[in-house]
């Protein structure tokens, strides 16, 4: 009998706990709440701290200015360790507490939550990660990968090379070095299609995870001497690549990195050795941007920043500010159009009414519509000159037809014929 009583007690306790939590949620309904379920402990730790800090700083800045129509912004941050199971748990708990805008910043977790977000009709931000075909707003009605996708970025890299080469890619060879798993493989389809159309030769150089062993790859590169190397590696992968490039005499100025290359990596490569390295980029780098200056002045100089001051000197911080600018601007638009409280519906309308929005000067302007949740996806190529990133071309969104072909094909496979 004791056991039964104990069990009853435990059940009662659980029910009480649940009631307490919902009660607390009701009190906080006055805030605009966003669920930030990030991987803060495993694979994505090279970006998540900067991005969380940026999000919180930006929220503080807006809150000091009166928030969204007088309602403060509140970010609930939780770690999911890049595990789908824990990401789902985070999502379900926050959703129960009334949160309806989420960001996961992890491809496996984003993928796992997509069907739930679609079923529950909850806004899911998915900037810069996750499935590229989610920009198709007609299929992925609740998923918003605002900003450029990897597919767009790869196409823009090719466009940049074409521009550098006087408008033609005939008889060129372009190497593609990538981590041999979905992140790295993603642009291959686009690159192959473009190779056929533009008449250049595409060479694929897969690198096993986590990218620390590339010696065989770069001896092959030395033999083949491609005109450019596009690289889909992460963090330290770039450092290893740069070392192998030096060893094999391949000029770093012909190396175009994916956007995941930051100041920390530059330091690890060595400033001198890194001078001339190219990077496809989706946000404006550096601190000479009004919004960053404002954050520094209003928060960090008052000692009220949400993390160490030096973290701001990182392009991922800018990435974070850009991502959250989009969310908060959409919330503002939603509030202006439909008033308080903001609902999932009005939030979605807010996102879809973003027009030529430049994320406080950090993105190339994006225009989100009902059918295009990406908003254009322009990127540019920048070069590290030893001190800062120097833009090498204008923001471009090239080969949109090729990208949308692939998007349509993949997203149509996602829809199911239900009987």
């Amino acid at each position: 009998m004791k056991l039964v009583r104990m069990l009853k007690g435990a059940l009662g306790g659980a029910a009480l706990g649940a009631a307490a939590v919902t009660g607390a949620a009701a009190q906080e309904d006055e805030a605009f709440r966003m669920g930030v379920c990030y991987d803060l402990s495993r694979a994505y730790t090279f970006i998540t701290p900067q991005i969380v800090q940026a999000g919180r700083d930006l929220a503080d800045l807006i809150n000091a200015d009166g928030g969204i129509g007088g309602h403060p912004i509140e970010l609930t941050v939780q770690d999911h360790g890049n595990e789908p199971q824990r990401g789902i748990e985070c999502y379900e708990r926050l959703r129960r507490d009334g949160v309806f805008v989420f960001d996961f910043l992890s491809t496996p977790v984003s993928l796992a939550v997509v069907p739930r977000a679609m079923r529950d009709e909850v806004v899911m931000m998915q900037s810069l990660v996750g499935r590229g075909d989610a920009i198709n707003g007609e299929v992925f009605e609740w998923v918003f990968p605002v900003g450029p996708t990897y597919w767009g970025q790869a196409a823009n890299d090719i466009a940049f090379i074409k521009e550098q080469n006087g408008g033609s890619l005939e008889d060129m060879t372009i190497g593609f070095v990538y981590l041999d798993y979905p992140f790295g493989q993603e642009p291959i389809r686009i690159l192959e299609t473009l190779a056929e159309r533009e008449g250049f030769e595409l060479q694929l150089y897969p690198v096993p995870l986590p990218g620390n062993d590339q010696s065989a790859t770069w001896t092959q590169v030395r033999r083949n001497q491609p005109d450019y190397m596009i690289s889909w590696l992460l963090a330290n992968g770039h450092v290893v690549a740069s070392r192998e490039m030096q060893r094999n005499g391949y000029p770093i100025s012909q190396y175009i990195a994916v956007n995941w290359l930051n100041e920390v990596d530059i330091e690890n490569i060595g400033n001198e050795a890194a001078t001339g390295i190219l990077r496809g980029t989706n946000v404006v780098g550096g601190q000479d941007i009004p919004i960053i200056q404002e954050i520094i002045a209003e928060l960090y100089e008052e000692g009220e920043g949400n993390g160490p001051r030096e973290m701001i000197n990182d392009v991922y911080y800018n990435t974070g500010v850009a991502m959250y600018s989009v969310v908060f601007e959409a919330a503002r638009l939603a509030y202006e159009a439909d008033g308080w409280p903001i609902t999932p519906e009005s939030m979605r309308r807010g996102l879809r009414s973003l027009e030529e929005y430049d994320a406080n000067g950090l993105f190339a302007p994006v225009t989100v519509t009902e059918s295009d949740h990406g908003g254009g996806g322009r990127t540019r190529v920048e070069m590290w000159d030893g001190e800062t990133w120097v833009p090498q071309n204008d923001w471009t969104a090239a080969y949109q037809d090729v990208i949308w072909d692939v998007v349509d094909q993949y997203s149509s496979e996602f829809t199911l014929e239900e009987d």
Partner: protein
Amino acid sequence: MFYRQSGIRHTDYVSDSKLFPIPADRNLLLLILLIALAAPFILAPFYVNSYILPWLIWTAAALGLNLVIGWAGQLHLGYAALMAVGAYTSVHAARFGIPWEGALLIGGALSAVIGSLFAFAALRVKGLYLALTTLALQFVMDWVLSHSPTITGGSHASLQAPTFRLLGQAITSDAGRYYVALGWCVLVTIFLLNLRRTGLGRALVAVREKDYAAAILGVNSFLYKIIAFATSAFIAGISGGILVVCYYFLVTPEQFTVAVSIQLLAMVIVGGLASIIGTYLGVGLILLAPGVVNRLFGALAGYFDLRFSPETFAHIPNAVYGALIIVFLIIEPMGLGKIYRNIRDYLLVWPFDQLKK
């Protein structure tokens, strides 16, 4: 007093080999089953859907792994790969139009075929060598999945599972999915509970203890190892399918990576080899503790008004979680199942054990 034995006399072999020699065990189990059946009505949906449902499915899978590691004594590091085979096969079969009952069985069957095919090669070696060979299964499967768009639907893409139907009944409610998971988990549990009473179970244990001694006794150790691998792979396949259709709703390669295999192994080891209740507890600890510890820590930090950087905030619960596993294994190296058994053994004679002293 709690597990009363007085008045229980087994006078024939049939009664002596009953599943529960002591009625208290059976009653406790029935009580738990009753609670499990009532869970959707007495617990908030959030707890049922986000904690108990995945817990049940992962337990079913871990029980299958425990069959091959705990009962047959063969280390297996590629279990998640077999779940992936089952998951992909059944989703493809269902998308092809085969009813889910059949699709899940096909998934399980293909998983069993691949699992035992691999076992043929792997069982020429033993111990750590076997462990590494099974790890190869995992890596081969990872590679195949990330390089065959026809199976996975392309890089970064994912396959949605069609609406789940059993016996013509569409299962779309949370409670429905919960009962499917519960049913499957109960089925696997009943199978393993009975395993130890059968010739198969005894043969597996003989093989585990010393395979050539078993061979001298006339037990074909190779055959029984293959049977163990095939059965556990079958359970893995169906569990993988159910995991996708009841919990993830779509299947991606990242759901079944080597990390998942290691996690499953940890569930079995922390729970206790060849222990059923231990597997339940082990899965509970490995799967649910991170979230619970995270939340407790969040509540504590909120209570004392501590401010941490987001990374520290994420890492402290992880450290606590790791420490928790170590502490449990130091207290009882045989796993959580043994802790339960110790408590039960103590209560079995309580309060009369004091008389001896």
